C-alpha cells in the first residue's frame, strides 16, 4: 500500500492573542507593531494532518505564500504536524493577491511537491479578514474533490477513500453532521471544532513519538524549508499577485473599540455573604445575555 501524501496550506496572520495586538489611534490594526504568528485556523488544519501522520504514517508537506518572515508560520505548523517538507512562496510580485491569485500560487506549489498528492488540508478561514475562499478555490484549481467544515475524518487505505464528518450549521435549524465518503485525492477544510481522537495504545505511542520528532524538526526547521521566488515556482505571472487578482480590497472598516464600562468591585472569597452576591450578579448577567 502506498503511504499517504499530504499537504497543508497555512497562513501567517496577526497575533490577536492578548498583549500582542496593537491598534492605531483610528482603531485600525497597526500591522507594524502587531506580532505575527501561524493563523489559528491554519494551526487546526496542521493538527488534522498530524492525525493522519499518527494513524497512517503519512508524509506531510506544509506550504504558505507570504513574506520571508512567514517562515515562522511554517515552523509553528511543523511543530504541530511534524511536517517532512516546508515550502514558502515568497516574492514581491505575490503581494496584493486576492484569494484567487493566492489559490493559483498555492496550487502551483502543491503540484510541484514530490509525489501524487492525496489530501490537502486548509483552515476554515483566516482570522485577519479573509472570506474562507482560498481553500475551495485551491481545491477547484487542483481539481480535487472539496469537503468543507470537516470535524473528523478517516482514510480507507485499501479503497483509497476518505470518510469525513462535516458540521452543517444553518440558521434556525439544529446542527447537522454529514458523513461523506470520497475517493482520493480530496481537499479538506477543517472546522474550528475539529478534534483528533486517538483511541489505541499504539496510536498514542506513535503520537508521542511524532510529537517529539516534530519538536526536534521545528527547532531546526530551516533544514526542511525551501523558499521559492516566482521564477523558481514557475507560475504564470498574470495569474498571481495584484495582477492576477480580479477583486480588490476597497475599504477597511474601523474596528469599533468599545468604551471600557467595567467597574470592578472587590469581593472577599472567604466571606460567604460576598460569595452569594457574586453568584447573584453572575445569574443576573447570564439571564441578561439570554434575553438579548
Amino acid at each position, binding site marked *: 500500500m502506498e503511504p499517504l501524501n499530504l499537504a497543508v496550506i497555512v497562513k501567517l496572520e496577526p497575533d490577536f492573542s492578548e498583549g500582542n495586538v496593537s491598534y492605531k489611534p483610528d482603531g485600525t490594526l497597526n500591522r507594524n507593531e502587531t506580532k505575527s504568528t501561524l493563523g489559528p485556523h491554519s494551526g487546526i488544519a496542521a493538527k488534522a494532518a498530524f492525525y493522519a501522520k499518527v494513524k497512517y504514517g503519512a508524509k506531510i508537506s506544509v506550504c504558505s505564500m507570504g513574506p520571508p518572515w512567514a517562515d515562522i508560520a511554517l515552523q509553528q505548523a511543523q511543530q504541530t504536524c511534524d511536517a517532512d517538507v516546508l515550502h514558502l512562496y515568497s516574492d514581491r510580485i505575490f503581494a496584493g493577491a486576492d484569494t484567487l491569485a493566492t489559490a493559483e500560487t498555492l496550487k502551483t506549489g502543491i503540484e510541484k511537491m514530490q509525489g501524487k498528492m492525496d489530501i490537502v488540508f486548509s483552515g476554515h478561514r483566516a482570522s485577519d479578514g479573509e472570506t474562507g475562499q482560498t481553500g475551495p478555490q485551491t481545491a477547484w484549481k487542483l481539481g480535487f474533490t472539496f469537503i468543507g467544515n470537516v470535524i473528523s475524518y478517516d482514510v480507507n487505505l485499501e479503497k483509497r477513500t476518505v470518510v469525513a464528518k462535516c458540521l452543517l450549521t444553518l440558521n434556525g435549524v439544529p446542527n447537522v453532521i454529514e458523513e461523506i465518503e470520497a475517493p482520493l485525492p480530496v481537499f479538506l477544510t477543517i472546522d474550528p471544532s475539529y478534534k483528533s481522537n486517538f483511541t489505541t495504545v499504539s496510536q498514542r*505511542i506513535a503520537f508521542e513519538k511524532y510529537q517529539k520528532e516534530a519538536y526536534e524538526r521545528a527547532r531546526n526547521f530551516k533544514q526542511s524549508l525551501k523558499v521559492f521566488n516566482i521564477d523558481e515556482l514557475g507560475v504564470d505571472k498574470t495569474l498571481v499577485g495584484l495582477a492576477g487578482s480580479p477583486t480588490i480590497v476597497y475599504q477597511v472598516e474601523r474596528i469599533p473599540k468599545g468604551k471600557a464600562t*467595567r467597574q470592578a468591585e472587590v469581593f472577599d472569597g472567604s466571606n460567604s455573604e460576598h460569595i452569594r452576591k457574586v453568584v447573584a450578579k453572575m445569574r443576573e448577567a447570564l439571564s441578561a445575555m439570554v434575553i438579548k
Partner: protein
Amino acid sequence: MEKYDVAIIGGGSAGLAALKQLSTLGKQAVLLEAGKKVGVKNISGGILYSKKPNKGRVYNVEDIYGQNFVNEAPLQRKITKYLLHATSKDKVFSMDLTAAHEYQSNFGYSVLMNDLNAWFAQSADESAQKCGGGIVPGVHVNNISWDDEKERTIIQTDELDEFQVKAVIAADGVNSEVAQITRARPKFSAVQLYQGVKAIVKLPEDIINETFAIGADDGEAHLFAGDITLNHLGGGFLYTNRDTLSVGAVYHFDSLLDSPIEPNTLLDALLKNPMITELIKDEVPVRGKIDKTLEKEKQMQIRFAVTKLIKTWYEIRDVYLSSSRRKELIKTGKFNSEDEIKSKLSETREKMSSQYGIQFKTDYVEDEYGAKLIPDGKRCRMKKPYHKNVLFVGDAAGRGVFVGPRIEGLNVGIDDGVRAANAIARALEKNNFSQGYLGEYYTKSIEESPYTKDMKEIDKEYLKIFIDATKDVPKDILSAKHSLVLKLMSSGAIRSMAAKFVNVLGYERLLPVIESEESYVKVPTELAERSGKTISSSYTPSIPLLADRIAKLNYNDDKVSHIKVLNPNNDFMKKLVMLCPTKCYSEENGQVTIQHEGCIECGTCSEQTDWKHPRGEKGINYRYG
C-alpha cells in the same frame, strides 16, 4: 484488541526504572501515566541516593541510566553536609549527621521530581520505542481483568480501547488503585503512613551559595525536630536545590489524627523558625500604592506595567545571580557581558522605584505548595508484593526506608523496578507467568534486597554512626528507657549483642520507643533550650495564606469528582476538615462534604473514601514536585 508484553501502571521514578530496565533487556513494555506529562504528579523531598551496601547489591540509578547519569540528569546539588537541628523558640542545637548521610552511599543529590522524572522518561521512552513499546501519558488505568481460559490479562483505562498484556507492574504510588482492584493488600492505615507537606522557596543560585557558604555544585540538607513539631511526631527538612530550596514537614499520620492540625500550620512553624527564616531570606519587591483618584483605566494600566516590570526584574536577576546561566546567556549571545546584565538589572530596578514607587524589602518567596502521603516501609511493606501476574513496586508496594534521619523512597522504588523488570523478562523468556514462576521469584528477589533488610531490622553500623553524631547530647535529658538503649548501643562491646537483642524484639516493639514524643519533641526541645545557640531573625517572613498557596497551583479541572465521601459523619472524615492540605473538606450540620477542585491528590483522605486518581490529564500539575 491490541497486544503488548508488559504494562507498567504509573510513571513515577519506580515505574520508569522498570520500563528502562525491561527495554534494556529488549522486552516490549508500555507505561501508562495519568498525568498530562510524566513528572507533573510526583512529589518528593527529596534526596536521591545511590547506595553501596556492604552485603548484597542494590540497583542504582547509574546502573540503569548509565554511568554518566550524574553529568546528564537534571540533578540539583550534591549534598555534602547533613545536619540535624533541635529547636526551641529562637534556640537551635545542631548535630552533624554527614557521616550517617554518607553511610554506604555513592552519592546523594537533591532533586526536583518534575524535571528528574521527565528526564528518566525521555531516556526510558527512547529505549522502549526500540522494543515496540513506549510511554503514554494522560491515561488513567481503571481496571485490570483476567480471562483465565484464554490466558489473557486485559487493561482498561478511562481514555483508550482496552488492550491485552502478559504481565503488569503496578507502580501507581502510595494510593495504588491497582492494589484495590487486585485486592493484593488493604489500603494503608494511618499508623503505616506519614503525611509530607512541602514548599518550594525561590532563591537565586548565588544567594544560596552565599547564605549556606557552599560552592556552586555543593548542597546541604537540614533536618529539624523539637518545638517546630508543635507537639506532633515528625519533623522538618530543608534541602538546597540549584536556585530553590525545598522546605517540608513529614509527620506520622496517626499522630496527626490524634490531635488534628492543618498541614500548612506545621509547614509555617518551620518557616517561622529564626534559623530557617534566615536561610530563606531574599530581597523582594513591594508594589507601591496606586493613586485611587486616577481614572480606572489608568490604574489598570499601571497595575499591568508593574506586574510586567517585576517579572522582568526577576528574570534578569535570576540570570545575573546564577553563574551557569550568566555564562550560558553570554555564550548564546543574548547578552554581551556580565556588566551588561548588571546594568540592565539596575536600570530595571531604577525604573521600578522611580516610575512606580516599587520598594524592596527583606522577605522570602514561595513558588509551590504540595503534599503527599509516604508509606513507612517498616510498617507496611507488602510481604507478598504480587497478585497473579501483577508485581508491585515502590510506594505502591509500601516500600521505603525511613529510620530517624534516613529518608529513602526513591532509590528503593528504583531498585524494586529493576527487580520486577528482571523477573518479568525471565518469565517472558519461558512464557510462564504463573505465581510460582513470576510472583514468587520476584518476592525472593525483593527479600534479598538490602533495603528490605533495612525495613525489617535495625542496622547496627548505621546506629553507631548516629550515636556518635549525638555524643554531645547531655545524657540526663533522656528518659530511663532512652538512656538504657543509648548506653547499650554506645559501648562497642555490647553494641552488636544489643542490636541483635533489639532486633529479636523486632521493629514493632522498638518503634514506639524510637518514634516517640520524647524523640521528636521533648528531647530536642530541651536540648535546644539548654545547649542551643540563640539565632535572631532579621525580619518577619510574610508567609502566604493557604488560599494564596492554592491559587498558585496549576490544575486541569475535572467536572467529576475523583473522590466520593462514603461516611459523611464519621470521625475520620471530620478530622479531614483540618488534615486535608488544601481544605477540600468542610463540615456543616455534622455532615462532611468535599469540594474536589482544589485536591492535590495527596491521599490523606483515601483510607475512608472511595478514592481514585483523577482521569487522564486532569487534576494537579506540579511544576517542581
